[in-house]
């Protein structure tokens, strides 16, 4: 049995030191109690069956909260093109607010805009109880942000806290457009827990492109949660590049609430060592004429594991739904594991839904073809692997970012 006594003490200390409203306090307490009722997720729970978190969360029997002397963002992680930036270093927001005509970026201090509802996701409840950092992006009606917004979420070699809880909020009002690139960089060799909870609201006919890069996490345990709600004609394009990410669950829930709303979710996992990465997607088609597409590719080397659980839910009134899901994995050693669980839950009768999942090794005929052209075996394999992954990157609609990710792949 997991013992939560230390965490209770941590929570009491935490809320005592917090300067906030009584409403917020109440919500945090409720969330924390909800968390305590279930505790950390276990493999018996169908929703967490293959999750690396069931094993790794056990390590966290207490949390240390110590504010760092703020480190700075190293130059080499900075993007070279013109962009707006939001910078977190070891969980602290260190860049100043941006307030331009048309949009604003602020520290998400009081989480005023967040939906305050505790759910049955235990880690989300934990996040809601302890959240103390995050950003808030709001784009005004009809405004298109002219440059990419880059979120640097940088963890230095030596953060002093062992638990970071982010709570972010993205609001695109009617007819607005934005591109957000989130770069998560983990350098520490200490074990820490990071949870992030991002709510996205996309107003009528708005368009959000959100691209994420996660790389090189060896020791921390990570839970990234995004929930997006789409109004009529809104579109959400999400791409996540995970390279050597251990003990991480990326969970995404999308509610297609308005007619003709559209979500395109694409992800790649490129894993070595004994790293375990999990992707969990759920797309809820709640209204007619909604469309979604999920495309996930995994390349597994050495002893790594990847998990993909993707669900398409179609409400009884969501006729003419178009839902598509495909996951493909390349298994490059006998010791890798790939778990894939596609799910369809459909209550409407006039829908078009398809899903597919496949896994296998590199095609020998293709390797021979490349080698017969003078390309050595190792390079031929690398070409094949990159080609396999490039197919997901190719789904990125923004040319500049497509090139950024293709180059990144080429440099690995």
């Amino acid at each position, binding site marked *: 049995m997991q013992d939560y006594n230390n965490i209770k003490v941590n929570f009491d200390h935490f809320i005592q030191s917090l300067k906030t409203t009584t409403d917020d306090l109440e919500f945090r307490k409720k969330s924390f109690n909800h968390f305590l009722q279930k505790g950390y997720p276990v493999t018996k729970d169908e929703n967490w069956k293959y999750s690396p978190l069931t094993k790794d969360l056990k390590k966290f029997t207490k949390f240390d909260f110590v504010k760092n002397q703020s480190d700075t963002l190293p130059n080499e992680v900075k993007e070279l093109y013109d962009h707006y930036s939001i910078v977190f270093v070891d969980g602290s927001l260190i860049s100043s607010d941006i307030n331009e005509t048309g949009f604003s970026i602020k520290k998400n201090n009081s989480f005023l805009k967040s939906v305050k509802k505790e759910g049955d996701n235990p880690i989300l409840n934990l996040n809601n109880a302890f959240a103390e950092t995050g950003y808030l992006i709001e784009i005004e009606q009809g405004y298109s942000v002219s440059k990419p917004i880059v979120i640097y979420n940088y963890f230095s070699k030596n953060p002093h806290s062992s638990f970071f809880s982010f709570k972010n909020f993205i609001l695109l009002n009617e007819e607005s457009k934005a591109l957000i690139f989130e770069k998560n960089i983990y350098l520490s060799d200490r074990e820490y827990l990071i949870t992030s909870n991002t709510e996205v609201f996309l107003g009528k006919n708005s368009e959000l492109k959100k691209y994420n890069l996660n790389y090189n996490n060896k020791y921390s345990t990570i839970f990234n949660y995004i929930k997006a709600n789409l109004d009529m004609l809104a579109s959400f394009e999400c791409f996540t590049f995970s390279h050597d990410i251990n003990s991480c669950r990326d969970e995404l829930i999308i509610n297609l609430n308005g007619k003709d709303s559209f979500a395109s979710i694409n992800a790649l996992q490129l894993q070595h060592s004994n790293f375990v990465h999990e992707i969990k997607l759920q797309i809820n088609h709640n209204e007619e004429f909604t469309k979604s597409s999920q495309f996930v590719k995994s390349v597994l080397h050495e002893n790594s594991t990847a998990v993909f659980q993707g669900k398409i839910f179609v409400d009884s009134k969501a006729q003419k739904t178009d839902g598509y899901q495909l996951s493909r994995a390349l298994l490059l050693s006998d010791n890798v594991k790939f778990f894939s669980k596609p799910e369809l839950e459909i209550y409407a009768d006039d829908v078009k839904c398809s899903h597919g999942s496949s896994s296998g090794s590199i095609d020998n005929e293709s390797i021979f*073809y*490349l*080698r017969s*052209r003078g*390309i050595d075996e190792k390079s031929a394999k690398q070409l094949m692997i990159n*080609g396999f992954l*490039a197919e997901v990157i190719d789904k990125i609609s923004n040319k500049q970012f497509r090139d950024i990710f293709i180059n990144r792949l080429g440099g690995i």
Partner: protein
Amino acid sequence: MIEIKNLKASVEDKEILKGLNLSIGKGEVHAIMGPNGSGKSTLSYALSGKEGYHLEGEVIFNKKNLLELNAEERAQQGVFLAFQYPIEIPGVFTNNFLRTSLNSIRKANGQKELNAVEFLKIVKEKSAELKIDPEMLARPLNVGFSGGEKKRNEILQMSLLEPSFVIMDETDSGLDIDALKIVSNGVNTLRSQDRSFLIITHYQRLLNYIKPDFVHVLSDGKIVKTGDWKLALELENDGYGKFVN
């Protein structure tokens, strides 16, 4: 000069090539014809280094036994196989593949690798000669190419890599009349004193354009008849019956 001596190839317990002898002199063009399943493609794979066969015998090329080299080493030595069924490779862009291939071979031969600009210039010229739309080269390798486009892409690779021993496995199958002329022209411009060809085909028509020095009949894993280009005409009229029992 290529010297194939008593070449045997088997897969599991099935013997496909049963002691094949053939010498191809420098600058010569040899055609191989033969019924379906007689072992023509297997010969082309055995020569170009595909794994999965149990091989016996020798193939001497540039004073080396090819059978002791792996596929990429053979390509680097100048062996080139134009595939009967070129493979589609999603995600690998044709241009990038072509440059990687050319540079691998240049590097192995101690030549300077080409940068993107230098490469583009060459590939543009060569693809124009073969009437290949440059847009095709921006697409993933062979993916969605028509049958004829795939074959033309093989010939483009051949003219880029400038091999000294070319094996063509039914390159003419699936080509329309104009494409057949274009491909044949491509081959004929490459014909030279120090380049040898082994052309596998079912149709005498190709041999009207690329006139072979010798024609061989392969049947049941062996060469059963050798003649000059007139043998192809004879086969076209009478079939293989005479040579196969």
